């Protein structure tokens, strides 16, 4: 794990929350919750070495490869 990345992402996320909070305050609970859940997912994912992990693209690839082979 790279500590610099963790620190950078946490700062970014912190800034984002600070920027959005004044507008977010008056909104219903559901809006606040979705904002924080999405931010948390983003922050959490950024901690991994993503480029070398299998991701949605790998799933798509294995799903659609047979079709594209057919087309070739």
């Amino acid at each position: 794990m790279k500590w610099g990345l963790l620190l950078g992402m946490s700062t970014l996320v912190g800034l984002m929350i600070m920027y959005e909070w004044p507008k977010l305050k008056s909104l219903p609970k559901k809006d606040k919750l979705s904002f924080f859940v999405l931010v948390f997912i983003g922050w959490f994912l950024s901690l991994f070495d993503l480029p070398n992990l299998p991701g949605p693209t790998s799933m798509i690839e294995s799903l659609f490869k047979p079709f594209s082979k057919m087309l070739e």
Partner: protein
Amino acid sequence: MLETGKISALQLGMIIYPVMMSTAMLAGPNVMAKAAMNDLWISPIWASLIGFLCVYTTHQLYAKYPQKTFIEQSEEILGKLFGKLLGFFYVCFFLQLNGFIVREYADFISIFLIKTPLSLISGVLVLVCAMAVMGGVEVVARSAQFFFPLFVIPLLVMIGLIFPDLEPRNIFPILGNGLIPSLKGAITPQGWFSEVFLISFLMPFLTDEKKGKRYGMITVGLVMISMIMVNLVTYFLMGEATGRILFPVMDTARYVSVADFFENLESGVMAIWVIGAFVKVSMFYYATVLGAAQWLNLTTYRPIVLPIGLLTVIFSFWGLPNLAVVGDLHLLVIPVLLVSFCCLIPVILLVISAFKKSNTAYKGAGSG
């Protein structure tokens, strides 16, 4: 209503044109020349059929369920549970696709900005797009409208400057190997053409709804003509080498040398590409944000703009270690994904909704 802005049908066309054209302009001739060789100018005609079909389906769905985007339509057609499930897939699809587009953009820009990290290039683009998306559909439309001439005119100027060096005999023999090579060349552009499906997320906000379909069709036609033009010009200039050069339009621009004054126009191509990528990414971004907000039944989509931007940047790295993998996906897998999500599933939903309509009419008659 999540969105209160209104746009005109012409603006819709001006958004969709760069969305379909920006990638095609840069890598298109290479992709099509690989499979179709000198018949590369026929491939866009085949591919555009998918585009016309997409506009037709999207418009039919919209006519059945007016004032609704695809995410809401699918809920009406498939019922709450399956509709939500499909909506989730669509939001993820848009997110991943947008990430992929951002990645392609960053990979291309990093040819020029060698030492800049990819994350910074994509982060800056997404931040600019986030500002447009936060302003709502009107801002997205107006920025597209403002950039439209800047996107089209330099391309025409470049073609004008290169004109004396063209060698039209390069395209012979026409259909020398039959129709198959040109059809194979149409596989990747089909994906770009099916992106016209995004009008589903713009149609509810049109001031002149009736023109939406017409402008969608016109845009697909114009994109087809522009693609043919770009393909022909690059092939007239480079001949068989088109299939081996990664970004042929860049090299075409590099070739321009008029009166020792107009030289090194590839920076102009880069500028056009940045404009195109901005419009494309902001449109996909807007569709993702609006789709997610409708899927979650939020009161406003503005708070989730930045988190989705963060996710877009993350998705632009996830599972994509290098340019080779990105290029490989771009050729076959992404087009198949695009065609199935933007064309096949909407067609299936249209068929289901046709059955459903007659069903409810029958029920209504029975109870009445």
